[in-house]
């Protein structure tokens, strides 16, 4: 069930109605959420409900066991943690990476003149597996680090793992942030409903109008890249950058909006990433839940920046490399991760403390800030070209084809892309200038109604009905 489908609308109306009816009992609400979440996930593929159940059961009991282990039983605690991590990574590794590693190993052996006999399997990737495995792993790791206590209520934990708004494409929540919300009775405030409505509307706009329409342009160029060169390639990459942003941030906004309607707060996952001034700034704005997860559970355990400059750069690079691999079992994702790792290191070499500088701080001229923004955006586009391409050959050919040459289609492609993306650009500029992602909720009711009405009408008229699946579902 996609969020922008009638089936989901019907599903949510029924679930929400029951949720409100059970408002006096948080236990009943949690049971309802658990059932609804399993139904939601089962509607994608019921065969993989077992996996999410296994992940839930293992981590619940392992979490409790780690917590109960005596202070001096470090080995036992480590073994239990290893059990949780290996169970989750094992599931993830098998379903997502088995064929990739087998094929890559086979290619490597062929390079050195060997002919290995390898077997690949027809493996279906369970939707959302990269998200919920990371989410449950963070629970056991945080218990191990004594940052949180395990929850006593299995249902509360199971809802944390499977909560349907964020199950299939994030945000990847932390137990310390989400579980307490399931443990307490919910009081849904008017502010939450108000914000939730805006986020759902805005998310649907970004997904159905911007992402899906830009996706057609991006597919046109990327799927027939040998027929597109020069400016057309640039337009294709710009279209993909709009698509992936609109798609993913749109999904996150809808997930957060739905959750707010139920009195649950999910973390902000995007903070205007295309306004970033440098790679560090970018990763504090793009898919924040993943970047912070990688920082806390990979980068810092590797040593972070505490073991000297060289080691810091190695840790950064490795973290970004694995972050790229998280996105998919293909070499272009690894290259994309490596690319971001490289530019992170490059910027650190040039700027000691890269950060987002406030262009209104008065200390820097606008042109400098704009230039930094433009450079970072160009680097991001380069990364997206690598990310979207189907092969290394395609990356090379598309990159080498970029020029100022136009074709008969260039003007039309440019116009179409600009048409779909311009409302997004205008609103995001306003959000950036006012430093408030919820600025549109601040208007008085008549103006807000006008804006929301225009957005809704735009969704009806320009929204793609046979919607493309959310890109991050494949991760």
């Amino acid at each position: 069930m996609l969020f922008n489908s009638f089936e989901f609308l019907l599903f949510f109306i029924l679930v929400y109605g029951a949720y409100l009816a059970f408002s006096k009992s948080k236990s009943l609400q949690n049971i309802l959420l658990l059932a609804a979440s399993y139904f939601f996930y089962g509607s994608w593929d019921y065969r993989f409900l077992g996996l999410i159940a296994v992940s839930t059961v293992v981590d619940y009991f392992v979490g409790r066991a780690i917590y109960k282990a005596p202070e001096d039983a470090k080995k036992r605690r480590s073994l239990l943690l290893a059990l949780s991590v290996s169970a989750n990574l094992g599931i993830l590794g098998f379903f997502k990476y088995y064929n990739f590693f087998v094929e890559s190993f086979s290619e490597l052996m062929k390079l050195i003149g060997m002919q290995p006999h390898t077997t690949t399997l027809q493996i279906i990737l369970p939707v959302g597996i990269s998200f919920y495995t990371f989410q449950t792993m963070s629970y056991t790791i945080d218990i191990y680090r004594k940052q949180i206590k395990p929850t006593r209520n299995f249902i509360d934990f199971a809802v944390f793992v499977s909560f349907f708004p964020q199950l299939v494409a994030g945000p990847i929540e932390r137990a310390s942030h989400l579980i307490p919300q399931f443990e307490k009775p919910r009081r849904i405030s008017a502010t939450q409903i108000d914000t939730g409505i805006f986020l759902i509307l805005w998310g649907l706009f970004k997904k159905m109008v911007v992402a899906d329409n830009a996706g057609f342009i991006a597919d046109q160029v990327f799927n027939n890249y040998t027929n597109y060169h020069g400016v057309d390639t640039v337009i294709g990459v710009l279209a993909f950058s709009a698509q992936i942003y609109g798609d993913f941030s749109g999904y996150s906004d809808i997930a957060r909006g739905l959750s707010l309607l139920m009195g649950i707060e999910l973390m902000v996952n995007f903070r205007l990433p295309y306004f970033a001034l440098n790679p560090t700034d970018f990763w504090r704005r793009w898919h924040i839940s993943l970047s912070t997860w990688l920082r806390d559970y990979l980068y810092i355990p590797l040593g972070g920046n505490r073991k000297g400059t060289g080691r810091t750069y190695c840790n950064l690079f490795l973290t970004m490399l694995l972050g790229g691999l998280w996105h998919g079992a293909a070499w272009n994702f690894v290259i994309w991760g490596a690319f971001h790792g490289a530019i992170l290191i490059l910027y650190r070499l040039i700027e000691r403390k890269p950060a987002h500088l406030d262009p209104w701080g008065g200390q820097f001229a606008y042109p400098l800030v704009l230039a930094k923004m433009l450079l970072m955006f160009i680097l991001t586009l380069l990364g997206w070209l690598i990310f979207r391409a189907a092969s290394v050959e395609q990356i090379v050919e598309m990159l080498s084809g970029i020029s100022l040459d136009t074709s008969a289609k260039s003007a039309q492609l440019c116009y179409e892309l600009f048409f779909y993306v311009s409302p997004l650009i205008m609103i995001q500029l306003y959000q950036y200038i006012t430093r408030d992602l919820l600025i549109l909720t601040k208007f008085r009711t008549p103006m807000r109604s006008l804006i929301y009405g225009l957005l809704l009408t735009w969704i009806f008229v320009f929204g793609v009905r046979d919607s493309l699946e959310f890109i991050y579902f494949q991760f």
Partner: protein
Amino acid sequence: MKDRTSYKHLTQEIDTESSPGRILGTILGTIAVTLILNALALRYIDQYPFNRGYWLVKEKWNILSSLQAPVDALILGDSSANQGIVPEQFTKETSFSSLNLATIGNMTMANDVYMLQDYISRFGAPKEVVIVHVYDMWERNLAHTLLAKTSIPWYALDSLTPSPNLSSREKVEFFLTQYVPIYAENKTLATVIMNKVFGPEKLFQKRMHIETTGFMPVQKANPDRVRNDMKKHLRWLENRSFKLSDINQKAMQELIRLADTHSMHVYIANSPLYEGMFDEEPFRRYYKAMQNSLRDLSNQSDFVHFLDMTVVFPADEMQNLDHLTQQSAVRYTQMLVEAISNSKKR
């Protein structure tokens, strides 16, 4: 001094105090704005239509609804009749006043019956009814989104005879097509906004024309299109046997009932066709089966007459496989009148 390494002060989500009244006001205001924009879209599409099929159905029903006095002969059918039968010529040949209410094939014969029922309820039965359809119409099902362009309101769907048998989803789409163009005709509106508002073409321009008699004249032939159409039709005919669709079957039964009840003579004829089709065996086989079936059905009533006429034209006198230019339409009308006359003599 601001912490320059912190991003937090730059883009936040700053909640604003809200209240149930504010939320309700916003929801109602949003709905109101959307309804206003929808109403403007509805008015625009009515005045300056883009979709020819929708426009033709709506226009013919408007002609029927605004009819002030009865006519002697009603001409019904699909687009082949819409472009193929000239009411002035019909009147000249028969001395019967006539009106061309033919629409398009995807409306099936059910629409002919619905129009006839509406006419009879207001003016009584006409002296003659002429129905002309293209050969491949008889297998089709009624397009519910086209039906939405008639004057039939959504709440009357279940009382129609023959019943269109719409599913719940189709009824919702019917309603949306009638009243919510920002949803149902979004592609048309998207094209208008993207290409007309910001493009060179005029936004407020009438694109299609029909005469007050209901006839839609077409001046220019398109022989290449006729020949291309033939290829498509022959592909469609591959391994296909004639089968009357359920809605057309029921429409015929209701037509027979109306004809018998009102002693009203109904003449059913085939559309004009490109002559090249008759060189093809699969088409001839299918056509013959179709004629036999219609003849058998017509024989159930003394008032329903199947005209066994096959009228062909060369490609340079046609717009497509079954659509005539105005000149050829005059000749087709003459042949039709002659066939009706011969039928009466029998």
